């Protein structure tokens, strides 16, 4: 155990500081072609014409691909879990977000690739786009997704991720006050300094070596193999040197098209997004709409919570159902609430598809829960630390999905924050601990939720 507690120098520090670290864009393969994408200029439109003939005959062009060249056009990010796919690798009849790729060109230089993209003949019939999750439920909006307003495949055929725990009716009957709030964090771009980039090199033995900045190497490998309908053993992924990801490099954004272009041209192909593409077309953290209604007592116990979450998936589902599932497990934050009624929907809009970012699904709910805790404290006229310490998870308490906490740190964290901010806690609260609930910390309403199994 030489490493634990030791201050070891980073193994990659010297490479970074001397500029020797080879990122994907620094890998050189002889004869590399550059890829450029034709992307949708519309948020939502029908593609009425797509003709790449002129582009194919442009100088320096070695391959052009559209939806027609993808062996398995639709493969979802959760397909490996048996969940149906909804997103075409390249848009076919319709574009559902601005920047959606429609065709890709590989050419000798970036300029030639860009010129060829400009020469692709494409026409659109624009439709009215939808940008706000809440508005998706209004009667008069046009639904951008063929599945309708929301993702319909939770537990195979449910339209929501739902949690029911205890008796929400009783909690609301017993409450002294009902306190509600709506929380709407906006989308955030992960913005790694290295933009999305991939280099796919066709090898003489028929395999492809794929240098990728992905954060999810084996996942990407499965996605490429599925779209291309080739066995996994024909793909050799080289990853590990990521110029920042923060969740934004979980989706397989570049590897499949690069490899298709490499296959078609017989040449290595590099696709490096411009910063503009990164901002406009790369997946972001989702915007969320969260409504919380709490049943509380005058002395600061939260008896029950009703919560509605609308998660903006953007135009396609990608990992959103997973994000909402994680979100649902955390919808009480670091606090124990025995009676719960939670509905979380993955809603489709015409925004760029959303994905992971630092605490996928959880940061949104933490923001909502902590904001709401402060609101409850204010409306009850209770010290916000005391409200939190009362309801904070203890050993043996159970999470919304029924997992017993074995070592929750909420009480200790609150003590540390209190100390760091110079806050005086009343003696009883200063003496609170993470140990199993007993005495004043164990009111009747919390008895039933406690896990029977002896945890420590």
């Amino acid at each position, binding site marked *: 155990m030489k490493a634990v507690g030791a*201050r070891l120098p*980073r193994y990659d520090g010297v490479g970074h500081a001397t500029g020797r670290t080879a990122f994907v864009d620094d890998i050189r393969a002889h004869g590399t072609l550059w890829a450029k994408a034709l992307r949708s200029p519309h948020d939502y439109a029908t593609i009425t014409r797509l003709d790449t003939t002129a582009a194919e005959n442009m100088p320096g062009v070695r391959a052009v691909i559209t939806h027609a060249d993808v062996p398995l056009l639709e493969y979802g990010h959760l397909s490996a879990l048996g969940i149906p796919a909804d997103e075409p690798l390249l848009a076919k009849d319709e574009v559902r977000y601005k920047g959606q790729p429609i065709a890709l060109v590989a050419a000798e230089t970036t300029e030639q690739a860009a010129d060829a993209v400009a020469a692709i003949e494409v026409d659109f019939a624009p439709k009215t786009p939808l940008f706000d999750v809440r508005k998706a439920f209004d009667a008069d909006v046009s639904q951008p997704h063929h599945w309708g307003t929301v993702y319909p495949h939770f537990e195979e055929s449910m339209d929501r991720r739902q949690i029911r725990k205890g008796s929400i009716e009783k909690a609301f009957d017993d409450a002294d006050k009902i306190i509600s709030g709506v929380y709407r964090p906006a989308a955030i771009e992960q913005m790694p300094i*290295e933009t999305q980039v991939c280099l796919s090199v066709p090898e003489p033995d028929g395999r492809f070596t794929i240098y990728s900045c992905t954060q999810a190497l084996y996942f990407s490998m499965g996605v490429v193999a599925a779209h291309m309908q080739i066995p996994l053993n024909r793909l050799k992924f080289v990853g590990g040197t990521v110029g920042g990801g923060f969740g934004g490099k979980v989706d397989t954004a570049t590897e499949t098209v690069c490899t298709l272009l490499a296959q078609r041209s017989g040449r290595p192909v590099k696709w490096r997004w411009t910063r503009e593409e990164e901002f406009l077309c790369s997946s972001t953290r989702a915007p969320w709409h969260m409504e919380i209604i709490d049943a509380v007592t005058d002395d600061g116990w939260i008896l029950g919570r009703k919560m509605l979450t609308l998660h903006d998936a953007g135009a396609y589902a990608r990992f959103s159902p997973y994000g909402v599932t994680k979100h649902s497990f955390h919808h009480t934050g670091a606090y124990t609430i025995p009676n719960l009624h939670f509905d979380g929907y993955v809603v489709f809009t015409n925004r760029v598809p959303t994905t992971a970012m630092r605490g996928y699904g959880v940061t949104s709910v933490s923001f909502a829960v902590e904001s709401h805790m402060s609101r409850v404290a204010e409306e009850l006229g209770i010290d916000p630390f005391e409200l939190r310490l009362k309801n904070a998870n203890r050993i043996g308490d159970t999470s919304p999905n029924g997992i017993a906490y074995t070592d929750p740190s909420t009480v200790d964290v609150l003590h540390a924050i209190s100390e760091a901010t110079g806050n005086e806690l009343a003696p009883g609260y200063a003496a609170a601990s993470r140990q199993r609930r007993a005495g004043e910390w164990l009111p009747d309403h919390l008895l039933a939720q406690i896990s029977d199994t002896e945890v420590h």
Partner: protein
Amino acid sequence: MKITLNGADAQVDSPPLTPLLHVLREELGVLSAKAGCENGGCGACTVLIDGSPRRACLTAAIAADGSEVTTVEGLGTPEALSPVQKAFVHFCAAQCGFCTPGMVIAATAYLDKGGSGSREEITEALAGHVCRCTGYLKIVDAVAAAREGDFDMSVAAESPHTQVRA
């Protein structure tokens, strides 16, 4: 066109308005300067031109004609790190490392010009450089300490920003 690149003569044949960054990476194969935005906004491409830090993505090749261009490859090698490079390693001032070459160049230029090493000055000197990973504190620590020269490179520095609770 000709430049002196990290001390050696280099012939440049790209069209005259090609960004120097493109010349370095695609024509001359010098890869430490990174294309983070190609728009002047991130600082990852920064190189020294006649000793002053400049964004290589905004500099036309022709504007560098006859100049001395230094990239981080020219500051030190893995075997013989420059003081700033040593400090970056010792203070863990690089996480993903993509911004690091530009940061090291700007920090070197700042110290070479006799910067006092105050945090305000360092922040100003690195203002054009975006780092998405580190949160900057360790980068500023490294630059402030770089003039001290030698560090025990077998360990990482204690961070003054981490309060370890008993």
